[in-house]
């Protein structure tokens, strides 16, 4: 027995120690899992083959944000990590400036603007962009007699919802169990009502300087959401459906629309390979403008305090080569964030290109609503508030949701000011 114990202990110690030594190696934290992770791994292996620098990929999956927040708070960050929409707001105090990197000039101006702080510092290498808009199932819309090209205003959109409802399908499906889907929905509605081209109340400036009147305009926004719920435009299993349910629903033709970024098209086609899907920008209130909300998809930043800045920079340079970006685009359905990359024949990206042409005269490209107009830390609150309204689409529910947004907005605005 004692011998066995000794053996086990030695093994434990031996394994514990060996993991500490490695040659030149960088630690890279990624949000991707599964087939997408395979592509990230493949690129990393090619990088190691070329430079001799090992890449240690860490993929916590859906717990990515939780893990990163813990690592930030303990000052124990990886050398390179994905900023997934938060290069400036959340991560900038821990990220190195990338202004002097060779690839900066190749970054698409709109993709670059998202990762550039007010003072001009670039914090992220925005390899691929996510593009928020409305995904629709072409078969469902045809069956309901809806022409997506004719939808410009929110009212047009609601008319389409009525028609979809009439054929017994769900007009808009939201996988509300995953808070990000609700927050993305709120970002789109708030932008259509308050800030985008063709909005109703023009509150951009007030939101930025903190004088925004939540009781009045916040209520208008949430009222709009409540109306959609009361009219039966939102799926009844809102609170329990997750992203997979949402993608399966649009793929299988159970619903007309998803209000989410175009990667959902790729995911939907993983579950329903022959799904017939289209894409369009978010409608605005008046229909004068329509918006694609651009954000970071595969965006990498470098740890400010890493001792391996050189190796990390080399990694970014390698990943940003056109052939590697193209691989990522194909795997994830996100758009290239670099001007010298073209991706032909990818279903999701083609759907986006078609939408670009179809709405060329009205479309504008905006930053994600909360990144531009809200203090840091509102994303979760937005999701929470939308859920409150969907669960209780009455005056009480709306008031409670608005109050929740207001309190958090003010508190976080104050903390941001410091």
């Amino acid at each position, binding site marked *: 027995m004692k011998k066995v114990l000794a053996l*086990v202990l030695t093994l*434990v110690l031996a394994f514990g120690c060996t993991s500490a030594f490695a040659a030149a190696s960088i630690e890279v934290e990624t949000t*991707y899992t599964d087939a997408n992770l395979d592509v990230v791994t493949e690129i990393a292996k090619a990088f190691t083959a070329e430079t001799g620098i090992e890449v240690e990929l860490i993929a916590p999956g859906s717990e990515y944000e939780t893990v990163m927040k813990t690592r930030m708070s303990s000052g124990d960050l990886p050398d390179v990590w994905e900023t997934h929409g938060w290069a400036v707001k959340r991560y900038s105090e821990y990220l190195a400036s990338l202004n002097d990197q060779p690839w900066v000039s190749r970054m698409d101006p709109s993709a670059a603007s998202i990762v550039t702080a007010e003072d001009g510092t670039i914090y992220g290498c925005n390899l691929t962009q996510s593009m928020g808009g409305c995904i629709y199932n072409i078969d469902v819309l045809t069956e309901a007699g809806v022409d997506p090209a004719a939808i410009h205003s929110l009212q047009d959109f609601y008319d389409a919802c009525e028609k979809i409802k009439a054929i017994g399908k769900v007009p808009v499906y939201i996988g509300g169990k995953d808070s990000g889907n609700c927050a993305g929905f709120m970002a789109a509605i708030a932008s259509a009502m308050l800030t985008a081209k063709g909005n109703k109340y023009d509150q951009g400036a007030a939101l930025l300087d903190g004088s925004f009147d939540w009781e009045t305009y916040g209520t208008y926004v949430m009222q709009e959401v409540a109306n959609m719920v009361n009219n039966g435009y939102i799926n009844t299993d809102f609170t329990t459906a997750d992203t997979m349910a949402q993608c399966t629903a649009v793929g299988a033709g159970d619903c007309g629309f998803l209000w989410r970024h175009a990667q959902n098209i790729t995911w939907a086609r993983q579950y329903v390979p022959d799904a017939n899907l289209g894409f369009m920008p978010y409608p605005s209130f008046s229909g004068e403008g329509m918006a694609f909300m651009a954000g970071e998809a595969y965006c990498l930043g470098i740890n400010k305090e890493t001792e391996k800045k050189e190796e990390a920079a080399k990694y970014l340079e390698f990943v940003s080569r056109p052939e590697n970006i193209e691989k990522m685009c194909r795997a994830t359905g996100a758009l290239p964030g670099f001007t010298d990359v073209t991706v032909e024949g990818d279903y999701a990206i083609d759907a986006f290109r078609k939408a670009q042409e179809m709405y060329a005269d009205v479309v504008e490209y905006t930053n994600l609503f909360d990144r531009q107009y809200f203090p840091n830390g509102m994303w979760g609150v937005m999701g929470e508030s939308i859920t409150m309204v969907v669960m209780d689409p009455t005056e009480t529910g709306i008031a409670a949701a608005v109050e929740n947004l207001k309190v958090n907005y003010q508190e976080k605005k104050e903390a941001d000011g410091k």
Partner: protein
Amino acid sequence: MTQQVKISQKNNTFLRKNQWWKYALSLLIIVIYLLPIYAVIMMAFKSPQDLSSRLSMPKELYLGSFEKALDSGNLLNALKNTAIITIGVILIEVIAGCMAAYPLARNHAKFNKFVMNVVLSMMMVPALSIVVGMYSLLVSLHGISTYWGIILVTAAFGLPLSIFLYRNFITAIPESLDEAAAIDGASTLQTFFHVILPQLAPVTVSVIIMKGIGAWNEFAFSLYVLQKSKMYNITLTIKQFFSETSTDLNAAAAGALIAILPTIIVYLVLQKYFVQGTLDSAVKG
């Protein structure tokens, strides 16, 4: 011990008259308990594109999920990690657990009662409420992504329960044995090793099964402590198949099936000692 088991077989004269309802009831229980496992098995053998009812048999036997779980999930490496971690956790919980239980069982002074209360309260602390403190501590000790880091953390939170079980067991060992050893001139340490320790085998089986299953399936701490993918344990590996970007339930189901195999085998081997061990630790309070 075997004697007691034999006696128990006889002791149910009350319930022996009508047997059929027992079979009916057992059948119902078995159905209720096997249904989820059946669903997992079906899921594991279906392809991700098969959107038929989750209860229906797969249209064709699809082994891709197992291949994927073993291959890209690197499940075998995870099995090795989990086995090392589980053994480490069990060692600490057994050794430190039975040692701490000894004074708790024997000494009823105020101080020991206080320790008992602390131990019991610690059993119930929601571990995640202190995750940031725990994580920074491990960072400063360089314990992230190491076996000893996760072993110590898991053991620290599991110790109270094993102390509790050992204490109940040792209380049932007559103190006169200790006294006899003391009269023979044995030191406290000698008494513990020669009088108490040899009797702890049954309760140790219970601790191994209960705490071993817990350590095998540990998730909350591993998520933070085991950052590097080559250090992942089984739950983290399975969890990898769930993310917002792509969820492969079928691979997760296949992974889950592979993951419970070792526990089921160990359980089946140890099961006959288990009831006996529980009897002595949980019941002779």
